[in-house]
C-alpha cells in the first residue's frame, strides 16, 4: 500500500513540477473582464456597434474605452448591464427602429411582368429591376426577412415588408441588405413616416400605385411644425421636428403616411388655471377652442385633433391631455 501511495505521489509531483515550468514558459495574459463583457452581449455579431463581432466590441470596451451604450442591438438592458460591469454611467440614446418606406402591396400597385425567378430581392433586381412597376417599391421577396437576426420583419399578405417595432433593435442589417435602399431608422417614439420613396411625378405614381406620394404638398402645408418638406417629387419628413401630432395622416389623399396607432388624444382646459388670454385660440389650427377674452376657454371635442400645439403655447400650463396618458406625446411636448 505504501508503495502505491509513494508511486502515485511521486508521479504526481513530477507532473506538477513539469507543468509548473511549462506554465511559466507559455504564460498568456487573459483579461477576465473581456470574457465577462462577452457574456453580457447578445452574441449575434450583427456589427451594428461598428466592430466586426461581439468579441471585438468586448475587447474595445475593456481596452479602448468604447462607450457602454455601443451595443445597439442589445439596447437599454445591455447598456445598463455593461455599465454595471465597467463601473461607468450609461448614456442611453433614444432607441431607433427600422421602417420600410413603401406600402404598395399587390392590391395597391401594378407590376410590369410576372416574375418567376429566385425568391430574393437582390436577385430579382437583376431582372429589369424587379417586377414592380414603381422602381422604388418594395419587392417583398423576403431578403430583409431572412437577414433579420431578431425575426422583426414579416412580409404582409400583399407582399410588402413590415417591421415590428417591438422586436426591432435598430441593428441596421436589413437597411444594408435592401437592394432598393428604402428602409430607414426612425426614433421609436416618433414613428410617423411617409411610406413612399418615389421621386416620379404624381401622374406617373398614380399609374403605378394607389398609395404612393403624388407630391400634392398637402402634408407640407398642414404640418404645424414645418416638419415636412419636398425633395423633388417626394415629401420628406424631418423626425427631429415632427411632434407626432398625426395631423398629416388623415389629410394625405393617397394615405401614404402612417405611424400613429393610438387614437388621437384630445385636450381639455384646466378651468382653475385658464386666464382667458386667448393664445390657444390663435394657435389652434382647426379652430377647436372657443372663449371670450378674460373668460375660461373650452375645447370642442368634435374638432380637436390632438395636435397639442395649444399645450405647448399656453403660458399658464392650463391645458392637459384628456383621458389616459400618452407618455410619448407628453414627454415630447413638454
Amino acid at each position, binding site marked *: 500500500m505504501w508503495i502505491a501511495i509513494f508511486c502515485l505521489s511521486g508521479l504526481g509531483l513530477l507532473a506538477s513540477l513539469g507543468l509548473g515550468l511549462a506554465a511559466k514558459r507559455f504564460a498568456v495574459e487573459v483579461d477576465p473582464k473581456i470574457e465577462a463583457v462577452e457574456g453580457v452581449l447578445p452574441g449575434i455579431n450583427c456589427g451594428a456597434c461598428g466592430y466586426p463581432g461581439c468579441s471585438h466590441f468586448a475587447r474595445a470596451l475593456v481596452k479602448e474605452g468604447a462607450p457602454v451604450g455601443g451595443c445597439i442591438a442589445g439596447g437599454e438592458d445591455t447598456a445598463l448591464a455593461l455599465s454595471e460591469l465597467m463601473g461607468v454611467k450609461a448614456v442611453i440614446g433614444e432607441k431607433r427602429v427600422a421602417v420600410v418606406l413603401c406600402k404598395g402591396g399587390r392590391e395597391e400597385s401594378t407590376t*410590369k*411582368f410576372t416574375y418567376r425567378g429566385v425568391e*430574393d430581392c*437582390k436577385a430579382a433586381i437583376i431582372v429589369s429591376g424587379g417586377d414592380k412597376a414603381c422602381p422604388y417599391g418594395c419587392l417583398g421577396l423576403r431578403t430583409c426577412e431572412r437577414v433579420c437576426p431578431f425575426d422583426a420583419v414579416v412580409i404582409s399578405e400583399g407582399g410588402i415588408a413590415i417591421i415590428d417595432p417591438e422586436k426591432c433593435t435598430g441593428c441596421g442589417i436589413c437597411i444594408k441588405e435592401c437592394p432598393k435602399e428604402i428602409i430607414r431608422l426612425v426614433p421609436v417614439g416618433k414613428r410617423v413616416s411617409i411610406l413612399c420613396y418615389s421621386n416620379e411625378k404624381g401622374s406617373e405614381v398614380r399609374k403605378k400605385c394607389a398609395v404612393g406620394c403624388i407630391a400634392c404638398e398637402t402634408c407640407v402645408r398642414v404640418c404645424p411644425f414645418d416638419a415636412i418638406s419636398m425633395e423633388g417629387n417626394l415629401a420628406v419628413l424631418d423626425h427631429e421636428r415632427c411632434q407626432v401630432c398625426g395631423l398629416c395622416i388623415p389629410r394625405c389623399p393617397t394615405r401614404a403616411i402612417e405611424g400613429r396607432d393610438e387614437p388621437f388624444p384630445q385636450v381639455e382646459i384646466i378651468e382653475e388655471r385658464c386666464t382667458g388670454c386667448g393664445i390657444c385660440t390663435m394657435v389652434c389650427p382647426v379652430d377647436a377652442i372657443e372663449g371670450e377674452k378674460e373668460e375660461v376657454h373650452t375645447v370642442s371635442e368634435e374638432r380637436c385633433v390632438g395636435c397639442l400645439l395649444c399645450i405647448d403655447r399656453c403660458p399658464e400650463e392650463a391645458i392637459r391631455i384628456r383621458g389616459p396618458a400618452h407618455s410619448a406625446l407628453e414627454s415630447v411636448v413638454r
Partner: protein
Amino acid sequence: MKVRYLFGGGIHPSEQKISQDAPIEEMEVPERVVVPLSQHIGAPCEATVSPGDRVKKGDRVGQATGFVSVNVHAPISGVVKSIGLFPHPLGRPLPAVEIESDGEDTWTDRLKPHEDYMDLSPEELKEIIRDMGIVGMGGAAFPTHVKLSPPKEKTIDTFIINGAECEPYLTADHRLMLEEAESIIAGARIAMRSLGVDRGIIAIESNKPDAIEKMRGLTEDIPELEVVALRVRYPQGAEKQLIKTLLNREVPFSGGLPMDVGVIVQNVGTLSAIYKAIRFGLPLIERITTVTGSGVHTPKNLRARIGTPIEVLIEACGGFSTEVGKVIIGGPMMGVSQYSLEVPVVKGTSGILVQPLSEVEEGVDHPCIRCGSCIRACPALLMPTILAVFAQRDMFKEAERYDVVDCIECGCCDYVCPARIPLVQLLRYAKAEVLARRKKAA
C-alpha cells in the same frame, strides 16, 4: 479541315431554325424611331442634336465618350422629336433620341466612301470603323475598333470569322452568309489588314451546309481564308469555345481574353457592316433581325433600322399568332425577356423570339438532387451546383474562389437542370456581386 477538338460541356437543344429559308426582307421605313445612346459595352454616347433639329439618314446623333465608346447615327431622315428616357432592351429606361420620319428617307451628304480602301492604313481603317459606330453584332455589342486594337504585347496570328450562330431559332447570320457573302469576306480582309494578320478561319456550324458551300466557293482563290465546318453544339459560337475547337487553345481563366492566345474573333454581321462602312462610308443604322417563334404568324429575317420598336417588326411578321407568353430579344438561351413592346431594335438585336403562353413553363423549382448534369453541361468548366449554393447563402468569397467570374451566362446549366433551379439568375447575381466587390477593393 477535319475538326478534331471540341470544347468541354455544352448541350444540343432543338435547333428550331424555322426561319432559315426566309430570305432577308426589307422593312418599310418606320414612322418613328427611338435611338438609344447606349447600345454598346462601354461609356454611353452624348447626344449631339436637340429637339427640333432636322436630321438626314446617317447623320451622327450621339457622340462617343472615351475610347471604349462609338457614335450612334440617325437611321431615318426626319426631325428630332425629343431626347429623354425611353424603354431599352436591358430592362430599364435609358437616354435615347426620338426621331420622327419625314417620309423621305434621304441619306446625309456627309458620307465618305473609299474606292481604294485597301490603300488605307490600319489606323485610318480603325478610325472609320469607330466613327461609323460599328460594334459586335453577335449580341455583345463590344466596340469593334477596340477589339481590333489589341495592346502591342499581344501578337495576333489568327482571325476567326464567327458564322456559327449556335443559338436555336436565330438565322440572321445564316441568311447574311447566303445573300451577302461577298461583303463578309471583304470585311474580313479589311479587319485582317488592320490587325496585320494573314490567317483567317471562317467557322460555320454544319447545320448550314448551303452557307458553308457558298463561303467555300468564294474563298477558293483566297489562300489566307479557310472555311471550317463545326459540329453543332451550343455554345459553339461563344469566343472561348470557338478558339478551343478550332485551335485547341484555352483562353486563360479569370478574365482572360482571346487576344491572350493570339486570336481575334468577329461576327459575320460585324464584318459586313465594316465593309459597308469603309467602302461606302455607311454608318451602322440597320441590321438583320430574325423574328421567330411559334408565337408569330410568319417567322422572317428582317432588315430593320436601328431604333424601330419591336412591335413594328412583329407586325411585319403578321403579328401574334396566339396568346403570348414571352417576348425575348436574342435567342432562347441568352436572350432577355421584355415587358414592353415599345423597346427598340439596337445594334446587338440579333433576334426577337415570341413564345406562346403554352411553351412557357411554370417557375416551380425543387431542391438540388446533385445529379451533376450542370457540371457536365458547363462549357466554362465550372460547377454551377456549388456556385448556386454559394449565391443563395451570399458566400461571395467562396464563389470567387470557384471562379464564378468566368461564367459566360450561356444557360446550359439552367437548360439541363432536372430540378428547374434558376441557375443563371443565381450565378449572375453572385458574379455581379463579386465583380462589384473587386471594384470596390481596387
